[in-house]
Structures are given as structure tokens and as C-alpha cells.
């Protein structure tokens, strides 16, 4: 394109951006401040200048860091190794026993701290006497001060704190900034006499009346067609509606219950063993408050089945876990780990009180997990769950419902694999074939509720159920690699605005 033509396309902001860059590269944010421009104006202009070949844009990724919960604890207390080092320094030479009795720390933490100090020669052990290596004091003080540096938002080389990252004391976060620089053509254009000329951008009523002699700024031959900022409902809402419609059309009624749940409804009623690892604080989100109210009769019936099983007939008997059931654990409050807690509340409220009527229920709601968040793990996830109650239901019926449901949400080719769930038997993992990825992927779980889970409700007919995590399927459909991009406050708003809804209705 001719230089003159290019110049006629430049507006005031474009010119301001270009003149800012004549003396060297700058971040877009610096230009905003220096020229008192709005962010959106600078961003739009930079895109245009880039397409005209007048500037270059480099994305500078910077890695930031922040403290984890453990990191925050250490920020107050000091790193374990720092505390041990200081303890030894304070007391001159000490024995291991003195260290272990003198410091009130977790034993494992203390062991690890002593081990690491020894390994890095911060301390010396001679004949059971431990002393510090004074040459290393600066180093350990510096290491400990990294915590406040991280908290204070100072820029730190992640290499320097790689140990703290590995130990889960500090976690990494990434941010991207745009650095702009002018090209040779851009520079040439700023020197052109025409560059200083004024071209009219917006038409006023006066301009329209007196248009003769005015020079209009020209637009490019192929202007960047921006995605307009329309309002939209969230892509998750659309997907949820798609699923809900499928469920309702199959005769299912929607369920709902509170996020806060008691361990009883989340675990006990489903016959999770009381020492099941999912119940650990490492996996479940516990409230500081406790004291959920449990229906006493039901609690006693669950306890009985857990401890001793039941015998309805010689063909239908359970020996239970043959272990003591501790009812005191049942009232602790948690953020429900799965929506099956809701399902069991509905079994109690509706199915057990209308045993003669067939029933189908579904829910699309959140479950919560104690996870460290990364590109594939989230702390809260939408779960889809469907259950069917009626006469003579079997695994064959379950497979029928699964096939029908997945077909309705655009997934044709599925297969089933036996698996294990604490509260269903048989249990079947649902796998779908991805024509794009050319492999089988897990897309759900299913099964027939164990008789032990239904006995306390007096239910003797089978209940079949299936479910899956919505985010995982949404990610497959949208071909996204980072699950966080559509997650709460971490959502990338431009991605959310521009993502194509069509993908959620098709196969993945």
C-alpha cells in the first residue's frame, strides 16, 4: 500500500501511539499513561498499526508468584528450616533431642527441616552436637525473607524460589504484557509531512451540512472486523440448558439442595467406609462450623446396615462392613463433594415415601473438592446426575438410558467398562469415541445403587444412576486445554465473549 494511503487511515490515537514509539519500545500501559489514552483505544490502535506493518507487538510473559496457604502460615511462623537454624543459633550447640523437644513443630516438618539443613551444610553434626554454620546465615535469612518478598509482590526469579514452589509454599502465576515497537516503515511515516495533517474522523451534524473541502480519514481495504461486544449468556449456562432439556424431555425432574452438606448425606448414607480416603481433610472441603441435624431413625438404620448388613431373603443379604460405625462423624459440615448427596435427599423425601410410583430425577449442580488448582483441576465443578427408580430395573435398562441420554447431547459412539464405586454395584465407566482425537475418552460413570444404600430407606427395588463432570465434557467439546479459562473470576472474558456456542451441540 502507498505511504500516503496509509497515512490517510491513521487517526489521532494511532498517531499518538506511533510518536510514543519513535524513541524506543514501550509497553502499551506506558503509552496509556503518557498520552492519557484509554486502554481500549490503545489496544485497538495497536492492532490496526500491526496490521498496517507500522509497529510490532511482542507478548512478554512474566511469571509471578504468590504464597499458598502453607506459605502464609510460614510467613507468620518462619520457614521450618529457618526456625530450626535460629533455634540452634540461639542455643549455641544442641543435641537432636533438644531440637525436637525445644521446638513445637510437626514432627515430619521438623525432620525434613533438620535433614535439609544438614544436606545443604547449614548445620554441622559432630558427635550428636548440632551447630550452625555461620557462613550460611545470610543465605537462610534471605531464603526466609523470600516469603515476605512474594507476599509484597516484589519481582522474584522463580528459579531462586524453585524449592519453595516444589514444597507447595509458593505457587506460580503467569501474566502477559504487550510491548510495542515501531517498524522501519512506521518510522518513515512519522517523518512524512502528511503525518501531521488532520483528517476528519467522526462526522458531526455541522460537518454533514458543510462537507465540502473536508478531508476524511480513510479506512483500510480490509479493516479488522472486530467481534462485537454483544451480551451473551454464559457458555456453561447454554450447555447446562442443553443437558437439562435432554433430561426433562426424557421424563426426569430436576433436583436441588444446599451446597453445605453433612458428612451423613455426603458419605454415610452412600455406605462410604468411614476410613475412606475421600473423607480426609486432604480431599474434602470442611467448614469451621459443625453440627448438622441428622434424622435419628435413618442414622440408626444406616449404622445397622454398615455394621451388620441385612437379610431380606436368602437371595438378598448383605454382611455389611462388620466394623463399628461412628455416628459422631456424621454431623460434620462440608461443602458437598458430589451431587449424589442431593440424590439421596430426594430418595429420602420422595422415593421412599412413594415406593409404588416410578420416578426419574436429575440435577446439574456444583460439587466441591479440596484440590490445588491447575490447568486440569478445579475446586468446584458442575456435576450432572440422573437416577431412575421403578420396577425390574437392571444393568440392561441402565445401558439403555445411557445410550439415549448421550445421543441427545450429541455423543453417538459409546462403550462401557466395569469399574468400582463405593455406592454402586455393578458400576460402569462410560467412554465415548472422539472422532477428532481418534481415541476413547471417559465421559461418565454409572451403576446400580448398592442394596446397602437403599435398605435404610426401606427400598427394595433397584435404582439406576449415571453422571459426569460438566467441565471436562465442555472442555472436550470446546477443545480447551486450560480448564480455568471459564472458571469464576479467572474467566478470560474475551474468550467467553468470542467462543462459538455451536461447538457445545456437536460431537467432540
Amino acid at each position, binding site marked *: 500500500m502507498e505511504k500516503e494511503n496509509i497515512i490517510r487511515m491513521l487517526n489521532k490515537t494511532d498517531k499518538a501511539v506511533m510518536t510514543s514509539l519513535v524513541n524506543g519500545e514501550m509497553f*502499551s500501559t506506558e503509552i496509556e499513561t503518557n498520552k492519557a489514552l*484509554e*486502554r481500549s483505544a490503545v489496544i485497538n490502535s495497536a492492532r490496526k498499526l500491526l496490521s498496517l506493518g507500522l509497529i510490532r507487538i511482542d507478548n512478554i510473559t512474566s511469571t509471578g508468584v*504468590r*504464597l*499458598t*496457604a502453607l506459605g502464609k502460615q510460614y510467613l507468620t511462623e518462619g520457614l521450618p528450616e529457618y526456625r530450626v537454624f535460629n533455634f540452634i543459633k540461639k542455643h549455641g550447640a544442641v543435641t537432636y*533431642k533438644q531440637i525436637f523437644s525445644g521446638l513445637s513443630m510437626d514432627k*515430619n516438618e521438623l525432620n525434613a527441616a533438620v*535433614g535439609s539443613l544438614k544436606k545443604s551444610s547449614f548445620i554441622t553434626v559432630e558427635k550428636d552436637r548440632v551447630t550452625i554454620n555461620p557462613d550460611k546465615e545470610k543465605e537462610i535469612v534471605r531464603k526466609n525473607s523470600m516469603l515476605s518478598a512474594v507476599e509484597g509482590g516484589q519481582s522474584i526469579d522463580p528459579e531462586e524460589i524453585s524449592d519453595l514452589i516444589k514444597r507447595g509454599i509458593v505457587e506460580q502465576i503467569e501474566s*502477559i504484557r*504487550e510491548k510495542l515497537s515501531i517498524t522501519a516503515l512506521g518510522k518513515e511515516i512519522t517523518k512524512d509531512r502528511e503525518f501531521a495533517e488532520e483528517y476528519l474522523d467522526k462526522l458531526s451534524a455541522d460537518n454533514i451540512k458543510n462537507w465540502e473541502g473536508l478531508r476524511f480519514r480513510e479506512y483500510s481495504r480490509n479493516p479488522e472486523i472486530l467481534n462485537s*461486544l*454483544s*451480551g*451473551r*449468556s454464559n457458555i456453561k*449456562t447454554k450447555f447446562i440448558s442443553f443437558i437439562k432439556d435432554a433430561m*426433562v424431555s426424557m*421424563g426426569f*425432574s*430436576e433436583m*436441588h439442595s*444446599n*451446597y453445605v452438606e453433612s458428612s451423613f448425606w455426603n458419605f454415610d448414607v452412600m455406605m462410604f467406609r468411614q476410613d475412606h480416603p475421600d473423607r480426609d*481433610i*486432604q480431599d474434602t*472441603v470442611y467448614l469451621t*462450623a459443625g*453440627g*448438622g*441435624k441428622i434424622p435419628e431413625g435413618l442414622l440408626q438404620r444406616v449404622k445397622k446396615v454398615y455394621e451388620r448388613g441385612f437379610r431380606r431373603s436368602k*437371595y*438378598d443379604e448383605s*454382611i455389611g462392613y462388620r466394623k463399628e460405625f461412628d455416628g459422631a462423624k456424621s454431623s460434620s459440615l462440608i*461443602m458437598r463433594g458430589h451431587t449424589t448427596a442431593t440424590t439421596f435427599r430426594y430418595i429420602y423425601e420422595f422415593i421412599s415415601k412413594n415406593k409404588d410410583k416410578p420416578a426419574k430425577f436429575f440435577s446439574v449442580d456444583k460439587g*466441591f473438592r*479440596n484440590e*490445588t488448582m491447575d490447568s486440569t483441576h478445579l475446586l*468446584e465443578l458442575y456435576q450432572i446426575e440422573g437416577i431412575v427408580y*421403578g420396577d425390574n430395573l*437392571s*444393568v*440392561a*435398562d441402565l*445401558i439403555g438410558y445411557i445410550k*439415549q441420554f448421550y445421543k441427545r447431547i450429541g455423543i453417538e459412539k459409546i462403550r462401557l*467398562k*466395569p469399574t*468400582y464405586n463405593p455406592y454402586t454395584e455393578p*458400576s460402569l*465407566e462410560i467412554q465415548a469415541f472422539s472422532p477428532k482425537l481418534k481415541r476413547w475418552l471417559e465421559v461418565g460413570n454409572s451403576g446400580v445403587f448398592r442394596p446397602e444404600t437403599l435398605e435404610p430407606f426401606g427400598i427394595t427395588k*433397584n435404582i439406576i444412576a449415571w453422571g459426569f463432570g460438566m467441565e471436562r465434557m465442555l472442555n472436550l467439546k470446546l477443545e480447551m486445554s486450560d480448564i480455568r479459562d471459564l472458571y*469464576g*473470576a*479467572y*474467566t*478470560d*472474558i474475551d474468550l467467553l*465473549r468470542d467462543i462459538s456456542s455451536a461447538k457445545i451441540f456437536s460431537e467432540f
Partner: protein
Amino acid sequence: MVMLNYTLDEMNEVMHRKLKIEDYDRLSLKCGLDLDHGESALNFELTSDRVDVVSRYSLASIFASQLGINIKRHLLIGRKNPGVAVDYTSRRFVNVIYVNLDGNIRDKIDELIAIQERLDKNVGRNRRKAAIGLFDYSKISFPIKYHEVDSNQINFIPLEYQSSMDYASIMKELKQSKEYGNLSGKKPIVWSDKTGRILAMPPIINADSYSITKDTKELLIDITGTDKETVNAVTKILIYNLQFIGSVSLVKVNYTSKEIATKLSLETHSFHLTEEVVRSLLGTSVKKDSIRRILLSMDYTVIQSGKDLIVRPPFYRQDVMHQVDIIDDIMRNIGVDSIKDIVPHSYTEGGFLPNHYTLQNIREILVGFGYQEIDINALTNEKYQFDKTFINGQDYVSLLPLKSGEVTMVSKNLFPELLRLISNNLHKKFPQNIFSLSEVVEKGNSDVIFSNKTKLSVVSCQKDANVTDVLSIIKKVLADAFPLNDLSTDYIEEGFSKTFITGRAYTLYMNGKPVGFAGEIHPRALNAFGIELPTAIAEIYVDGL
């Protein structure tokens, strides 16, 4: 999940067949195992119910039952009484077994250690509930005794060490002490022989002098722990897995008191099955003879009694509690593919939650105003909910510390999360006019103290943002979705004095009843979020309308 990693040759050696990777792939899918494989490496992942599968022998047995292959195993369990006494201790439950190996142990030693480690970790819960100790039987002078001693009596050469160590040195220097030292009680527990020499200090370390070597031909194994059922379960699984490499005997243990007797029994419960019971769960017919053949191949004991089959699971299976567990085994054997699906046929009326269409309508109106819907997280942090918004937090759900330091509570208001989203998207396109229709958690009249409440929050962040524009949107929403036309306002009185600009913040009323609030965010809060454009918000309860 338990991982078992073997090579193709290792598996085929036990299977006595030249199976290919694809064969294992097909069999794994049918039996319900996950298999990842390289060119010749097979990495199996087992579900947590089959705790008995801890070696390539027990793993191969799953496949063998599918293919009708018989893997050699010494089924007879003997009895032995070399002289073993057990005192009451802090780890009071003890079983002891003896194994006469087929030849010496040589190439099986790694597998044996792996079995020990898997059981210690997965069933014994890192040796807390149960732990296993291995000894070379021929090196022991019987009788032996399991008892507590004073720590000053401890002096032996720990496994893989050269010289004797006292209690303090063992606890200080051994990596095992660091891992398991906290499992022993106030007094150390030892196995000692008739001369008083220490064989081991369970569950931490054995003495080197009694350790197994490549030439070991006979094993003595102790299973010690705090939980009787776990000690017995580990013992049974161990017996099963060792039956593939030697003949196993139960060693008679003389317990000093009745309450520590483990009463180990290899008997299992008898379940009745019929063709009809199987058909009613699977929805497909399996003939009685087939059921019998399948269960026998899976090591069940099956007795025919009229139309009934009386079925006893193998002694090592911890997962069979009801007939359904046995039928699940039958299903895995015949293959899920052989079950023909039944097309859903029972009629029930489907339906959404009562507020479904109201919420849908609200979304539609806001989208019409050009607002983008945001899905807000329930889990958040006081920093956003209260500190940066200058709100005095009370009556909210506070959480015990989580792995992610970012989460400490459950959302009470939606708009702080929307401001947080804008602060994370400062380099993205503006205006950012957004809304969320989500549930928050508040103290309420429920059996779990708290209840979900549905709220709507509307946030406009742009150069001309102002509260009156946002109020006009709220008015439209209320008028259309409910329909309510008497929205009135008053200056907001308490709770938000620092959140909003004074004189630009309102409590919203419908029929005189407060339903929410609206305002222009004060620069102090905008600065706290790093937002550089005027921002106006409204937040209303949807449930009560």
C-alpha cells in the same frame, strides 16, 4: 488407585501364553482395569476394591479366569507351631505365617518386597493400621516373643547397616524411623528370640541378621497392627499372593490375653444365587452351568442345591458383601457387551425447578442490555468478599484451611467476584458489562445451618458507568420477570459506607420490602481491585421476589 507395572514378558511368563499387548488391552477393558502401555511395558491401574491384587500372579489370575488358564498355586494351607508368643502392646494385633518357597527366592525377591510395600501402603495405611515384616526362617532360634521393652534395651544391627545401634541412633538416623517412628507407642516393641536377641522392632525396622537373601528358602512373616480387621485382611491377601510362589502355613501364636487374639479365619459367608437373581440385576440370562463355571474360574466355591447355587467367595476377597458383588464378577466375565440394552419405556413427567423460567427470562433481559453472563465460583476469599470491598464480614461460611490458599470461605455477595473478574481482565476489551445469576450461601433455617440463596448481580464497568443506568436495568428485570413495578430506593444506611460513593448508593425496595442494593463503587475499592474505570453495581435477591 493401585498401579502395577510389568513387562509383557513378565506377564506372559505367569500366564504361560504368548499374549500380545492388544490382548491385554482387550482383557483389561472387559475386566475393568485401566491399562497404559509402551512397546513392551504394561502399566495396570486397579480400582480400590481389589486390594487383594498386589502381585503379577494375582493380576494374571484375573486374566486367566477369562481365558480358562490355570495358574499354579499351592491351595493347601498348613499349620506350624515353632513357638511364637505375643504380649499385649500398643500394636496389639499380630498374625504370623510361614512360607516354604518353591526353590529359593532369587528372582522373586523384588516382587516380594513390592507386595510388602503395596500392602503396607494401601491396606495397612502406611503401616499405621497394619505392617508386614519378612524374615529368613532358617536364621531364627525359636521360640520368639513379641513384646514391649525399655528403649535402653534396644541394641541391634538394623537392616542394611553394618554395626549395632541403640534406640536413640535408630530413631535419629534411619529413614524408616522418620517415616514410621511416630507409629510406635511410648515403649518400643520388639521380636526377640530365645537368647534375647532382637529380630525386629515393628513397624519400623528389622534386624539385619534375619533378613531375607537370594538364597532364602523359607520365610517367616509377621503382620502387626492396631486394627484387627486390617491385620487379618493383610494376612489373607498375603497368603493368597504367596501361594503362587510357595506353600503357606499359619503359625500358631500364643496370645497372652484373649482380647488381642486376632481370630483369623479363612472361612467366608455363603451366598445363595439363582439364574433369576442374576438375570434380575443384569437384565440378561446366564445359565446356571455358566454361572457355576465362571465363579469356579474366579476361585469361588460353588455348591449346587436344587435351583440354588451356594456360593462362597475366596478367603482373600475383601470386596464381596452382597450377591450384587458376585453378580458383578459374573458380568465382568461375560462382558458388558453381551448385555443388550433395554430402551427406556416407563413414563414419568419431567420438569425443571420452579424458578427455571424466571431465571431464563432474567438472563434474556440482561443479554438484551448487552451484558455478558459470568459463572461465579462459590468458593472465594475474605480478601475479595470483605477487605477489598470494605465490607464488614459476618454470618458467612468459613472453611478449614485448604490446599489452595486462595480459598477460605463461601461467597456471600456476588459483586466482589465480578469486580475480581474485571481486575483479572484489565487488558481485555471494555466496556465490561457483566452479570451473574448464582447461588450464595447464608445462615438459614436448614438441617445444615446454612442455605443457598439465588442472587442477581449486575456490574457495569465503563467510562460512563453510573448507578442510575444500572437501576434502570434492574427495574426492567423486575418488571418483566416477576412482574413488579414498584421499585423504590433509599440511601443505603449500613454495611457499605466505604464500598460506595456517599450519595450514590441505595437500598432497593419492592412493596416496602428490601430486596437488594445498588451503588457506584468508591475509588478506594476500585483501587483495591486495580480497576481504572467507573463501576456501578446492583445486587438483588431473586428467591424472595
